[in-house]
């Protein structure tokens, strides 16, 4: 067997699921959900969609662990960067609110 081959039915299922999840994301905005609920839903739906695309469409589910780690581990560094920048931005916001009113 050559390359990554999987039943077309599986792709159709994932396709449908991605449509559904995108529709739900859109609903979050349409119904003006706010605060923690909005953020939880936006991020959960985002991660679910991203996971489906990477795992099934990009076949990462069926690749060897070495390749999976190559792709999945380094982006964790971006989360660290985002965390640091969030802290920094909070501080900047505080400074600006205090000094530039």
């Amino acid at each position, binding site marked *: 067997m*050559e390359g990554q081959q999987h039943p077309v039915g599986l792709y159709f299922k994932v396709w449908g699921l991605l449509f559904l999840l995108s529709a739900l994301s859109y609903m979050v905005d349409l119904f003006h959900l706010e605060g923690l609920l909005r953020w939880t839903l*936006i991020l959960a739906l985002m991660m679910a969609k991203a996971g489906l695309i990477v795992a099934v469409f990009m076949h990462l589910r069926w690749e060897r662990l070495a390749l999976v780690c190559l792709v999945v581990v380094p*982006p964790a560094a971006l989360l660290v960067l985002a965390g640091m920048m969030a802290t920094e931005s909070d501080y900047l916001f505080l400074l600006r609110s205090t000094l530039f009113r």
Partner: protein
Amino acid sequence: MSAEFTTAADMPPAEAAPPRAGWPGMATDLSGDRRMFHVPWGKAMMWIFLLSDTFIFGTFLTGYMSVRMATTTPWPNPSEVFALTIGGAHLPLILIAIMTFVLISSSGTMAMAVNYAYRRDRRRCAALMAVTAAFGALFVGMQAFEWSKLIEEGVRPWGNPMGSAQFGASFFMITGFHGLHVTAGVLYLSIVARGVARGAYEKKGYGIVEIAGLYWHFVDLVWVFIFALFYLW
């Protein structure tokens, strides 16, 4: 090189001479014929490229998060900025929703194209790749419409009438770079589809379609993050 791998080729020879230094050393190192990922080299290379691209978009989105969190001026409401009135109905964020569905559909047709490629069904594979590229072109077209609408409303990379100046900078930078990726993808898919239709990969095998597919799904993947973090925040 065939796609098979042998355990013997993975191991350095037992009586290996001390490795050479400098440029010749680098050449022998890189041509050492040792495999790590056990996939065709083109696929490994595409994954590594996509990993680098992940960092580009990841840092863009982190930068956008930073300026948005730090600004004391009100951020324009994307829901309203990207609303359209169609047939008298005011629909918030509708264009972006349609663009999202178009890109997801293109990912579906691409996955099927890879499937038909490995079944050696050239005609269906090329047709599905052409449909994928057409969806991509449609997406870029809608993005061009979105950009011209915003530019008309006075949104610039350095300011806009709706609120925070950082809005324009983030918007043009992130969606522009993504749109560039989609455009390059449309060209890439078209070239590979032409090769498939002509039977250029009959001897080599159809790994190239899977590799092109990886790139295309990645473009869709990035849009998932942009949609959530830029348009829904």
